[in-house]
C-alpha cells in the first residue's frame, strides 16, 4: 500500500515538501503553543482573570490550546489526517460525545455538592 500523506496544515495555509518537514513543522507549532501556555500560567495576566461562562478566561484559553495541541498530535503524528472519513468519525465523534457527557454530569454534580456545603448545612471549617 502506498503511503501518501496530506502535506498541508492550517487548512492549506502551510504546505510542506515532505512528510519529515511536516513533522518538524508540527513540532515547532506544538512547542510554540506549550511555551504560550507556560508563559500565561506563570504570568497570569490580570486582564484574563475575568469570568466567562462560569470559568476564568485564562482557563478557557488553556483548555482551547490543549484541544488545539491534541488535534495536531492526533491528525499529524497519529496520521488521522490520512485515514478515511468513516474511521476518523468512529474514533473522534464517539470519544468526544462520551467525554462531553461525562464531564457535564460530573462537573454539574460537583458544583451542586459545593452549593450544599456553601449554603451552610454542613460545617467543615474547624
Amino acid at each position, binding site marked *: 500500500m502506498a503511503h501518501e500523506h496530506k502535506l498541508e496544515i492550517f487548512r492549506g495555509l502551510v504546505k510542506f515538501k515532505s512528510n519529515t518537514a511536516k*513533522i518538524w513543522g508540527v513540532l515547532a507549532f506544538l*512547542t510554540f503553543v506549550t511555551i504560550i501556555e507556560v508563559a500565561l*500560567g506563570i504570568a497570569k495576566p490580570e486582564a484574563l*482573570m475575568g469570568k466567562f461562562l462560569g470559568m476564568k478566561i485564562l482557563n478557557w484559553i488553556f483548555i482551547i490550546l*490543549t484541544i488545539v495541541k491534541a488535534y495536531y498530535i492526533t491528525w499529524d503524528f497519529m496520521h488521522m489526517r490520512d485515514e478515511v472519513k468513516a474511521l476518523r468519525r468512529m474514533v473522534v465523534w464517539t470519544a468526544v460525545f462520551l467525554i462531553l457527557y461525562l464531564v457535564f454530569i460530573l*462537573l454539574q454534580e*460537583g458544583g451542586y455538592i*459545593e452549593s450544599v456545603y456553601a449554603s451552610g448545612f454542613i460545617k*467543615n471549617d*474547624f
Partner: protein
Amino acid sequence: MNTTVATGTEGKTWGGGNKPLTASYGKMMMWFFIVSDALTFSAFLAAYGFSRFKFIDSWPIADEVFTHFPFLHGVEAPMYYVAFMTFVLIMSSVTMVLAVDAGHHMNKAKVTIYMFLTVIGGIIFVGSQAWEWNTFIKGEFGAVQTKGGNILQFVDAEGHRVAVADFAKVETGTRTQHESKNGLWFVDEGALPTYTMTEINNGLAAHPDVLVRTQIINAEGEKTVLSREESIKQLKENGRLFVQGANLHVNEYGSPLFADFFFFITGFHGFHVFSGVVLNIIIFFNVILGTYERRKSYEMVEKVGLYWHFVDLVWVFVFTFFYLV
C-alpha cells in the same frame, strides 16, 4: 474432517477480503483500544474535576505545589519542570513519527536510530516523573492538619512560606514510640509526627512574625492569611497533627484528595509510559534483528507508534488540568 467451508467469496468484500475502512486489522484495533483508554483517562480527569468543583474555594493552587526544579534548591520555579517533561514527551513523539516515516521508506538504519531515541525519551520522562513524585511525597515546609481535616500552613509577613522546622520549639524526651515489645503486644502505632502540637503552638507564640495561612481562597484568588491573634487561636483550638509532604491520607499542600488524584492519574499515566517503553524496546530489537525487513513492512512500528502518541496526547491533558487550570 475439513471444517472450513468454501463459499466462493474468499478475497471478496463479503468474505473479508478487503480491509474495512482501508485500515489494517491491527491498526484499526489499536484505534479502538485508544478510544476506550481515552474514555478511562477522561473518567479519571472528570472525577478530578468533580472533586475540585466540590471544594472549589479551598483547592490547592498547583503553582504553589510544584515549584521545584532539580539542582535548584530553594528557587521558586513553578511549572518549568513539567514544561520540560512535556517537551521531552512531545520530542519522543516526534522521533517516533520519524521512525514510522523511515519505516515507510524501508530504511532500517534510520528506524533503529529513531526507535532508540524514542525509548530514551520515554525513560527520561518516567525518571522525571519519579523525581516529581519523590519531591511531592517528601514535601518541603510541613503544615498542621485540623480536626476537620483542613490544612494550616505558615507564612511570614511578606506571605512567603515558613517551614515548621524553622520555628517549632523542640522539647526533648516528651514522647516515646510505642512498641509491641514494651507495651501492648496487639497494638500497633504508626510513625510519630516529627513535631507535637505543643511544640508548634509554643513555636508560633515565640515567633511574632509567623502567621497562619488557611486553605480558603479569597476574592483575589489567593489563600487567606489570618491575623496574628486569629493565627494563634486557630492553631491552638483546631490544630491536631503535624504533616510533612503528601501521601494518600494527608497532604501538606491542602486537600488530601488533590494528592490522591495526583498519585492516581499521573501514576496511571506513568504506567502507560512504562509499558510503552517496554513495547518500544521489543519493537526496537525486532527492527535490529531484521524481522520487519523480512516481513517487508514496518507496520508494527506504526501500531506501537499510535500507542506512544496516545500516551503523549493524554499527558497534554494531564498537564493542563493538573498544572495549568
